Each structure stands twice: as structure tokens, then as C-alpha cells.
């Protein structure tokens, strides 16, 4: 049996157990994905307390609506989608949603497609005057201040490590759209960290 087939069978069995309301299956899935879901919500909301409430309510809601899960995506994507939608609703309700402004890439090039000015920031493979620890702190801080549309794809891809299929299902977007959004988000993060 291929690994994928085995995984598929395990997932099907697990979903049946979840739909049957088996508490051991729920405990298992919460233990496996819960901490990462909470971390994701906390970084999206920027508020740990609210994130806990959002995740609690989302998971309870998932318990009530698991009968509607049709297996077109993984259970992991389904969980992320629920938490993501609740987090975005809460961010919008609080009027804290940060829209993506002008694409940073628009400002770099002239009409001929060449650099308008020299590329800002450090030169060479290793940043001068910046050790990796300080740079990592900066990346973390800047990620938490990116517009939400950038932040969500970076968190899911780079931090949570979801694959393309899982992210597309969680955010209800196409792979082509994700590819563009990932690039813009990474470019925005680079600009924020480098300062230009």
C-alpha cells in the first residue's frame, strides 16, 4: 500500500470516529493540531486571549458541524479554515483588518523593467552588521505587522508548514492565486525587514 493510500485510509477512519463523536478521536486531533491552530490565531489577531476564545469556539463549532465534512480537503485544512475564518471575522469586527497597500515591487523598476535605484539593504549572502538572531527577531516582528492577507499566507506556508493543497483549501483560493500571494507576501516581508 502506498503511503498516500495509507494516510487516506487513516484519515477516513479518523473522520468516521469524529463524526461518531468518539472523544478519543477528538482528543487526538486536538492534541495534534490544536497548539498550531492557537499559534496561528494568536499571530493573526495579535492578541493571545482573543485567540484562545476564537480557537475554542471554532473547535466546538467544528464538533457540531463535522457531519458536513465531505472529505474534499483534509481534516487539517478544515480545521485551519474554520479558525482562519473566525479570526478574520473578529479582526474585521474590531476594524483592525490591515489591507494590502501598493505592491512594494511596483516601486522598484522603471518602464524598461530595470532598477530605478540601487536595491536597498545589505549586500552579499550574509548580512553585514546583523547577526542571525537579531535578524530573526526583526523577521518575527515585521511578520506580525504585515497586512493580514500577507501574514496569513506566510504563517500557513513558512511557519505552520502547510502544503499548497492544504493552504488553498484553508483559504479557499487557487494554487495560481496562492503562488502570486506568497511571492508578494515574501517581498513585503523582505522590504519591511530590509527597510526598502
Amino acid at each position, binding site marked *: 500500500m502506498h503511503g498516500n493510500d495509507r494516510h487516506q485510509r487513516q484519515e477516513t477512519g479518523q473522520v468516521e470516529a469524529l463524526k461518531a463523536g468518539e*472523544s478519543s478521536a477528538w482528543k487526538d486531533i486536538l492534541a495534534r493540531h490544536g497548539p498550531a491552530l*492557537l*499559534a496561528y490565531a494568536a499571530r493573526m489577531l495579535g492578541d493571545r486571549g482573543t485567540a484562545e476564545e476564537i480557537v475554542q469556539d471554532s473547535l466546538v463549532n467544528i464538533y457540531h458541524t463535522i457531519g458536513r465534512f465531505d472529505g474534499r480537503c483534509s481534516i487539517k485544512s478544515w480545521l485551519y479554515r474554520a479558525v482562519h475564518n473566525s479570526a478574520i471575522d473578529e479582526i474585521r469586527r474590531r476594524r483592525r483588518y490591515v489591507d494590502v497597500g501598493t505592491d512594494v515591487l511596483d516601486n522598484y*523598476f522603471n518602464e524598461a523593467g530595470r532598477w530605478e535605484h540601487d*536595491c536597498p539593504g*545589505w549586500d552579499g549572502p550574509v548580512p553585514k552588521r546583523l547577526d542571525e538572531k537579531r535578524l530573526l527577531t526583526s523577521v518575527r516582528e515585521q511578520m506580525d505587522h504585515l497586512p493580514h492577507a500577507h501574514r496569513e499566507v506566510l504563517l500557513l506556508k513558512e511557519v505552520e*508548514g502547510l502544503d499548497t493543497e492544504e493552504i488553498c483549501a484553508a483559504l479557499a483560493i487557487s494554487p495560481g492565486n496562492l503562488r502570486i500571494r506568497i511571492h508578494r507576501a515574501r517581498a513585503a516581508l523582505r522590504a519591511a525587514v530590509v527597510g526598502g
Partner: protein
Amino acid sequence: MVYLKCSNVVSKISEIIDGQASLMTRMRFHGHLMMCNNCRRYFEQYKIVKELAGKVTADDLPEDFDHVMEFVMNKIENKDA
């Protein structure tokens, strides 16, 4: 070989890093980098920041999921939510 403009090169970086670019695109991309200091610099910065973004995880994972778990499992086991 078709020449890539700097703006094209920058737009291909994510595909290159994620291993999604074709061989021809990779050859044009790296050929351009050899000649263009600005694109080379941008690529290095982008790559470093992308790699560091992937290291944000570990020390940020919440330690106290337990009481969220307890809340949800109480709702599930009591079926009173």
C-alpha cells in the same frame, strides 16, 4: 536565449526558491544574476528573509493549549455546547 528584465527576474524569485520554475527559467534567472548586482542582492536578501520566516515557529508555539483542550473536550464529552 531570451533576456529577462530585472522586473521579470524579481517576479520569478518565489518560483525559483520553491523549485517550481522550469529549467529554462532557472537558466535565464541565474544567467541574469551573474550580470546584475541589484538583482543578486535582492535575491540574497529575499532568500535569507524567507529562510528566517521558516524559523519563526518553534519558540512561538503556545505552551498552554491544555486549558483550550479542556474547554473543548468538556463541551464535547458533556455534549452541552
